[in-house]
């Protein structure tokens, strides 16, 4: 039972944003800020935005 993920699904509904937030939280839990930031960087790259530096 992962209450936070369940709450994310409840608040964000079934959406791309919900998937992204889930990915973000999971990455943070597994690899801290750096891993979560990598998820954000990847998300932004899809919009042609590079914030790596």
């Amino acid at each position: 039972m992962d209450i936070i993920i369940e709450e994310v699904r409840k608040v964000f509904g079934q959406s791309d944003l919900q998937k992204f937030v889930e990915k973000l939280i999971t990455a943070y839990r597994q690899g801290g800020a750096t891993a979560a930031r990598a998820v954000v960087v990847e998300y932004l790259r899809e919009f042609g935005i590079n914030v790596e530096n």
Partner: protein
Amino acid sequence: MWKIDRIELENFRSYRGRHEVVFDRVNLLWGRVGAGKTSLLYAIEYALFGKQLEVREKVAKVVDLINSEAHEMRVALQLSSGSDVLKIERQLNKRGTERLVVTVGGVEYKKREAEETLLQLLEVDEDIYDRLVYISHRTLEGFIYGTSHKRTLSVDRLFGIDVIDNVISRVLTPVMKQLLSHAEDLRSRLANYEKYRDIIRKYDSYEGLVSRLESLSREISELKERESQLSRDLEELAKRRISHIDKIREYEAVLLEYYRVKIELELAGADYVDSDLGKVKNSLKSVVEEFEHFFDPSLLERLNSSDLDTVSIAMVEVYDAIEKLAGDLELQELEMERMYKHYSDKLNKLDSEIADLENVLKKLEKSYSRFRELQKLYPSAAAARLRASELKKRLQEVEREVAFSTSLKTVLTYLAESGSDKCPICGGSLDMEQLSHHLRELGEKFGKVIAEVETLREEVRSVENIAEEMEALQNDVAAYLSARGRVEQLKAERGEVVKKILQAEKALRQLERKKSRLREILERVDKRQISEAVSKYRRALRLRELQRRYRELEIELKKAGISSDVVTVDMQWRSALENLEKVSKRITDLYRELATLENVVREVGGSPESLRKTLENVMYTYEKFQLIKSKLELVKVGARSRLVRATERLFGEIFLDIYRYGDITNVSVDLEQKSGHYQFYAISPTGEKFGISKLSDGQRLSLAVALALALRMMAATKLAFLIFDEPLPYVDREVKSAFVNMVKNLAERYQLFLASQSREFIDMLRESLPAKLFTISKRESSEIS
């Protein structure tokens, strides 16, 4: 439930060489700051997960766990659960290559299989381990001493909700700041694009500019190679030239002219003849002669001039005049064609109209002929009417005469038949003989008059019929005559039109002939040919002049004693010098251009379309992140509320288990509506409810630990141990004492590991419960005793 039996460390962090530690139920680790207590506890985490918190949060790399003087490390952890034994061994070298072997029930697992086996057996991940197994002073202090907000953060940490704050504050907020800064940068770049618009336009587009920038570097590199080669050549030639320098300087003017002439001759190439000029000129002359009325009379004279410039100008003027004339003829032809078409159309129209009228005439012909026949009797209907009127008048007179004669005859017959000798009307005497005579005469006359009446009646009917018929035919006759007149008029007009058409045809043929002639000339000669012919002729003249001068200069140099070898070397030296200067100048120009373009690329960095698109995306994602942040706050509140409800019962039970003084009979936790902070309450045996501010530090400590243990039980891990790493470093003795009492109770539930630098605290613990003490010290490396 797995407890730790032993651990072996080899070159792990501050531990150099191999160290083996066998653990008991309660294990106390004591040593000064930096001695290696935490490293020993980290080794347990590393053995379980292949990393630990600092590595996970990228504060340190996993290879940093290797002792600084070693190339590889090894950690072997042995756990047991009843009779089951679990051995975990991890080896790591400086290159980051790790070897993992997990042995359980005599079966060995490696790599991924080994990780999966561990997770399956222990049912714990790094996150739960760091929150609920490995408890440090950070967790407890915030709870005991912090404000409501700090306590909430501590509880969030225990609940694992802190991940939301961390995602917001450590990931989203900095990225959003970057996005705003990125947007500002993009706006500035768009403004810079306007600033450099004129420069960019020279290269068609920003992409064109970038492409030029790339080619510029290659071009500069090639030119620099060429510059080096030219410098070497120049140096070599200068060495050869120096021995003749005096002579060269003395005759420098002659030499320079010689070189100039020579180069010009070389560039001129083959010898030129003026035959082209003659041909072109003659063609133009023939046109001027043929169309003399159209040209300026002086042109012919100028074409025959001996001055090349005059001829050249005249040729161009003739050519222009021919072109103009051809254009005029073209216009005239168009006009004539228009006229020809106009008259042709008119002719067609006239023919059509004449044909229509002739059809009308054909239809009216019969009526007209009949009218003409009647006209032979009477010139017009009016004349017939007049004759009819005269005849009617005569008929009336004759009819009156008939009436009189009839009356008279009646009277005479009466008198004759009555035998009376007197007139009954006037009383005069009557002569029968005379009366009979009159009767006879009257009878004769009556018969004639009756015949005349009949004749006149017949005549009147006939004339009236003629008049009626003529009147009926009058309209057709008028139409016939009108049509006939119109036909005659149209035929006359048609004759004129035919004449015009013939004239136009003739004019068109003439214009076509003239045009054809001019076209032939224009096809044969054009301005470029004239210019080339003149230019060739001029070059031929120049060439002859150069050849003459070249021979003169050769003789002069020979007389001066300057050999052809010296001339060649000097010429090559000058040429190399000139080329070098040109190349150097070109390189300078290109560097200047390069600097400008690099500046544009640095300050603009993209086409306006791509910059605008990126700016839109930046603002779009910024707004998305803002939305995520606000929704994550809702997630946090929702998660707090659910976790509070889920842990409430267990929290109370565990608290009463570890806090056995009887002055608190229950505890509860709630969420403050407005701030969303956790509110902890204790309930006294009398049912009184106290907020956390009314509780002692020891009671608060018990609350914190009870909450952690409640969550840990909910997480249902298979670990039977609990680690306190320096749980209360700066607290008073009373709190420590409370903690010691709590630990006594905890020891009944868990295998305990407790690390502290406080000897007093460690001694308090040792006095209260049986525990194994490990003293950690450090000289060159950490040691355990």
